[in-house]
């Protein structure tokens, strides 16, 4: 820091005083590389332990979703015996058994796929809807903004679960994992939109956007290069936190009879089913909750790392 400042001073001394030009140009002795926000962000991410821990956790869950048989130690989650109902964890069955007497470890492991698909897909749709609608409303303003904001308000008025319930009941999307994810996202994107919209409005009036505009930059360029990079941080953090809420909300839909149905397996279903047995078999809620929390933490860590990496002021 001090060295840089000393160098600054030396350079400034030359130019201040009576002349502002340098005696001889000193241009050639530089590394001929122009960094960009994204290349710098990647460099920063690579050095961030948070990113690696989050990434590692995520990889584990991803592997679980892809190859559940490995993690379940070869046990079939649907091979149940009622005689084992609600048995506590033991050396042979680490997570114990559920009410139907199925091996709970295998169930939790096999639940990863559906839960992750629902969580990630829903969050992606939330992010997409939130950013696109929010950016358009904030950037264009006026009537566009009024219309989009009022539409958002209408969605706000419908509770997440109720809205999803109605959509799934009509059956146009089907009843599968994708349908549940999209139904959840459809009624969960409004806060993301509000966040993006307010940020875009704040950034839009800044001088550097005016400078780009005065230079003749197109709207697309201004949005992509100037506004979105400066407006995206809060919504990134918000969506990574929301992923847990969405995975859990899937269970509520099931409870209402419109979400995934047995024999489908998901963490939401397990937490939902376990709640009524909390007194007698707490492990039925505990284990799926732990993996859900770890998943959400993995996303939050990656989101935080990404937000910091995209803000040069946060870098060392």
């Amino acid at each position, binding site marked *: 820091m001090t060295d840089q400042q000393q160098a600054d001073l030396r350079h400034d001394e030359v130019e201040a005083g009576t002349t502002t030009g*340098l005696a001889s140009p000193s241009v050639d002795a*530089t590394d*001929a*590389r122009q*960094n960009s*926000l994204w290349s710098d962000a990647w460099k920063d991410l690579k050095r961030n332990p948070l990113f690696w821990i989050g990434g590692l956790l995520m990889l584990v869950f991803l592997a679980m979703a892809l190859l559940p048989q490995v993690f379940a130690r070869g046990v079939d989650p649907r091979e149940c015996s009622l005689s084992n109902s609600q048995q506590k964890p033991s050396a042979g069955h680490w997570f114990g058994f559920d009410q139907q007497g199925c091996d709970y470890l295998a169930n939790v492991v096999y639940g990863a796929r559906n839960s992750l698909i629902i969580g990630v897909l829903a969050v992606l749709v939330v992010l997409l809807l939130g950013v696109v609608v929010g950016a358009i409303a904030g950037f264009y303003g006026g009537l566009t903004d009024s219309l989009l904001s009022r539409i958002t308000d209408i969605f706000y008025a419908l509770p997440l679960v109720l809205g999803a319930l109605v959509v799934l009941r009509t059956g146009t999307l089907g009843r599968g994992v994708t349908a549940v994810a999209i139904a959840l996202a459809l009624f969960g994107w409004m806060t993301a939109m509000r966040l993006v919209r307010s940020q875009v409005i704040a950034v839009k009036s800044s001088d550097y956007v*005016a400078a780009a505009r005065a230079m003749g*930059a197109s709207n697309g*360029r201004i949005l992509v290069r100037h506004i979105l990079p400066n407006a995206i941080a809060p919504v990134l953090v918000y969506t990574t936190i929301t992923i847990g809420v969405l995975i859990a909300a899937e269970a509520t839909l099931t409870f209402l009879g419109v979400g995934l149905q047995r024999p489908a397996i998901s963490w939401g279903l397990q937490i939902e089913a376990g709640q009524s047995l909390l007194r007698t078999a707490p492990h039925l809620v505990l284990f799926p909750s732990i993996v859900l929390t770890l998943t959400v933490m993995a996303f939050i860590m990656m989101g935080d790392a990404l937000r910091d990496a995209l*803000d040069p002021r946060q870098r060392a």
Partner: protein
Amino acid sequence: MSESTTGATAASGALRGAIGETLLEVRDLQKHFPLTQGVLFKRTVGHVRAVDGVNLTMHRGETVGLVGESGCGKSTVSKLLVALEKPTAGSILYKGRDVAKMGGRALKEYRREVQIIFQDPYASLNPRMTVGDIVAEGWSVHADVAPKKGRLQRTQELLDRVGLNPDYVNRYPHQFSGGQRQRIGIARALALRPEIIVCDEPVSALDVSVQAQVVNLLEDLQDEFGLSYLFIAHDLSVVRHISDRVAVMYLGSIVEEGTDEQVYTAPSHPYTQALLSSVPLHEPHLRGQKDRILLQGDVPSPADPPSGCRFRTRCWKAQDICAQEAPALVDRGQGHPSACHFAEARTVVPVDVE
């Protein structure tokens, strides 16, 4: 008119004082912002007359100073000139062509040739772009100015020219001080080889000792590239120092215009006189030698300006005619235009005899 002159360097060598042909002509420029009520269905309840009849002429290689107090509309003039706002009425003629009627390629070319430097060096640079990207951004829009190959080299030359270490291309704005950031803003404007740079309070946010560095840099760049400046500021001392001609603005229109000598030593509009007489002097021996004209009251709202002369509500010379007839900005025998029915030269700034 040299339509073919694309690079400002073609005009380099134009010396200070040697004023070239007319580049820009502003005629009766107006900008009214609607005042609206309602959320979904907005209805207009009035207009803020931010700019209400501004006439200006800029020649090649010249610096025109535009002074006025906050709210007088000078910043709106700068936004109109760089086509960030559309005029309500009146015209901006650039090399004889009306900017409002330009479209597509012509407007793009205009936006290259007329650049802007902002007041706040902390807000005018994108915090998430490297200095190199900021300076070079214009070339992505106007690809013909600099070939893709060698852009980095060009960027570094520009940084060097404005007094920054060329090795800093990969740094971010927050790593620089206010004065250095302002230099980055200047390099960004310079990158497009403009003819005119609109400087909107370029040194007001800087420390006193750094202001002079930036003013000197602007002067040198003008000599080197034959630039014309519209220098907008509220600091009358800086404007006098840098300007060839000065226009004084009050409540949306220009009240007096002339060479820096004419406006500062023989101001003939009462507002100019009051403004100049308020500037604190730096020489102890001149203290108390000037007539202080203390204005009464506040500037009227631009949403509801007074009839006739805008200044009449605070003017000690006001008579009936001032409320009825708006005085035109014409020479009234002082050798330079003044928008006052009772224009009369008066010395308010004591001349410093060294």
